[in-house]
């Protein structure tokens, strides 16, 4: 029996899953925008937490936990790597002397903070993508793309299928890596990433071939894709719109400007906590009252 990838889409009667693609894309897009581009740690933490809350409220707990685990690992890795490879910054915490390849290694508070911000971005982005992947029906994405990229089955496939395919391959290849004999060359992260990318693209091409065989690129009469309205659409349009405005304002105005070099400097503005609160509160938007 196959075990489902933690971030694979599972149909559920929850709000994000049943809402239309447009409002959900707007809502999660606001989170993605902030997590990817903001440099304010407070906003990043709040947006990550908000996205996680949204995921839990949509029955995507497994996806959120998986993304937090993987993103947490990335966060720690980035902090450590940045601390070791970047000696910039005025606050030296430790002098570790000369290292092979790296040369002189001075661990600074600024480098740790800079690595932390990059890691927080990665963590937040992964949580948002995890929620998207687990809650948004790839069939709907395919239908949406079909309208604008009619002749390009590969584009549609890559958009709608690459994430679950990569997740499945990752699990399988990781498992096989643990089954290798002691004299076989161990599977490092670079080899794994390389294989994962090549394998996922191969599989995506297979799926694209299948789409072509189904007639994806066929010059057909106007297809009957129906727009299915959901009673949750209005909620996501409204919340998504508000959050998007806040996200754009945050990025444009940079209320909580965080500078790491040459010294740590956090320019506090009252707007910063408000933005953070908005994104944290926005996480409850997908929650709904359960029938008793």
């Amino acid at each position, binding site marked *: 029996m196959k075990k489902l990838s933690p971030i694979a889409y599972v149909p559920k009667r929850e709000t994000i899953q049943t809402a239309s693609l447009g409002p959900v894309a707007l809502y999660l897009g606001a989170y993605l925008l902030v997590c990817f581009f903001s440099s304010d740690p407070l906003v990043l933490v709040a947006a990550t937490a908000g996205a996680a809350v949204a995921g839990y409220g949509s029955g995507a707990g497994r996806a959120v936990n998986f993304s937090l685990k993987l993103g947490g690992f990335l966060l720690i890795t980035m902090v450590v790597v940045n601390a070791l490879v970047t000696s910039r910054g005025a606050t030296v915490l430790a002098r570790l002397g000369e290292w092979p390849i790296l040369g002189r290694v001075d661990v600074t508070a600024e480098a740790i903070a800079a690595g932390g911000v990059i890691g927080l971005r990665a963590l937040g982005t992964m949580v948002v993508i995890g929620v998207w992947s687990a809650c948004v029906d790839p069939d709907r994405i395919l239908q949406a793309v079909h309208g604008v990229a009619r002749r390009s089955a590969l584009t549609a496939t890559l958009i709608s299928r690459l994430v679950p395919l990569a997740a499945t391959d990752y699990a399988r290849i990781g498992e096989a890596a643990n089954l290798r004999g002691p004299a*076989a060359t161990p599977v490092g992260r670079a080899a794994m990433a390389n294989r994962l990318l090549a394998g996922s693209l191969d599989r995506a091409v297979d799926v694209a071939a299948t789409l072509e065989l189904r007639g994806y690129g066929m010059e057909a009469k106007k297809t009957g894709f129906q727009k299915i309205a959901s009673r949750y659409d209005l909620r996501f349009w409204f919340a998504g719109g508000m959050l998007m405005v806040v996200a754009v304002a945050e990025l444009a105005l940079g209320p909580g400007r965080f500078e790491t070099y040459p010294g740590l400097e956090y320019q506090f503005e009252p707007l910063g906590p408000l933005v953070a609160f908005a994104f944290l509160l926005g996480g409850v938007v997908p929650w709904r009252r359960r029938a008793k």
Partner: protein
Amino acid sequence: MAEAGKVNLVASPPRSGHALEFSGLDYTYAASSEPALRGIDLVVEPGEFIVLAGGSGSGKTSLLRAGCGLIPHFHGGEIDGTALVAGRPITGNGPGQLADVVGYVAQDPETQIVSTTVAAELDLPLRFRGDHPAERARAVEEVALALGIPHLLSRTVTTLSGGELQRVALAVALVTRPPLILLDEPTSQLDPVSGDELIWLLRRLNEEWGVAVVLAEHRLERCLAAADRVVAMDEGRIGFDGTPRDFLAWAIELRPELATPSAMMFAGAGVEPLPVGVRDARQILRHEFPAPLDQGWGPDNESVPASQDAPSVLEASGLWVELDPGDGPRDVLRGIDLEVRAGEKVALMGRNGAGKSTLLRAAAGLVEPVGGRTMVPEGIALLTQNPGDFLVRDRVGDELAGPEGEAAMKAVGLEVDPDRDPRDLSGGERQRLALAIALAGRMEGRALPGLVCLDEPTRGMDRGLKCHLTDLAKRLAAQGSAVLIATHDVEFAVSFADRVILLGDGEVIADAGMQTVLSGGWYFASEAARVFDRPGLVTVEQGVDYLNDLRNGAEGEGR
């Protein structure tokens, strides 16, 4: 737009006289210097059922790809000659343009499913074609009924078993009612029950709907009886084209590896005509030998289980495993008690979803049991279903470096240039390389794992490659490892195993010597067992002996 609600139960007629027509077709893949197809001349008439035979790499898949337009549009390369699908040239029409006249089902159903639910998957080609929603709803319902899958319509595709996925893939290929359907080893991942069901379902659709079927298969004993005609591929050429019975005579004489077990038995004993299937064999026997031998006849060489003194290499006691495939947890293994001893060669069989892979994974510690335990005191090497998962580098030599790597390759009988890309190896070579990776550093003395497990290793292999695998299993067993192979391939199990464990719904339902288990049923039985129905008679050699005894008995009565 077609009028809503009108759905014909027969395939749309092809636009020309032939469903498929190749004339002087040559094709070479973009990355290859050797042609994959050479001078193919073939005509498939509407309503024909053709079995495409041939060894691995003989050109079967390329021929089918050319029949649906994937060649040359998706695979590139150089093409010469004429190829018409329902009168349309494939050079001017891609797969999308041919989708209404040909359906294609590839070997791996997982890469052919692109939607989330079965209903959405069936609906997709109709949507692409622009059919009216009412028309689509009815077509989906009709095809689901025809293939016996209406209960699957609301299921997510990730929760389907291999057999169910294959049926869904077939339904998708048929939902637009194409006059021609091409299938590339669709039974390779199916258990004997599902495989037989699929073949007869194809035959029924062929007869009732008039769909022309071209079916590529390695296990010919499974499908020859359903065929009108057999086309055998040989190094990219058509080596034979004729009736199934003529094909068997040709195969016995020139390509014995393609002959079915029944044909080999009858040819070995000089009984004619050669049977096209089990039913045919039984009819011939009734006609030729009206008085069968008494029930006391039986082979005297039942395989001997490993000595009870041999150390135990796998112990499972009260093993319960629960998995959640996404639609709720379910018991996959239910209180398994099992012991495998060093030197045993064991076939693990059962329907799709019976728990075979999970048992192997539990033994290797990849899944956590919710009850009971497994012990592998001498260590375990497991080769999972997809050997490609073990191959992560661009050079064979980078996967297995040093003398221990070379020793592992030698142990599995693999001799390839270390500079070759693992992805360019043949299916059998990839399998061996993956096994060498799993065994590397564990081939000598105490390092040799007590248990070597292979999960469905014969997928897509011809008989020659299976023979290599059998040799490998025997070699490992001779060195002291127990070999446990999960397989659906009964004839392969006959060739290597001395013990068979049959799982059913997570429980052991039979565990005995190979000859006992594989002669005592109908589905999980070799072709020899199905023809003769004698306890312990499972191999071709035994079948020949039995036929000779029948002949001698008949001649004695005649005198």
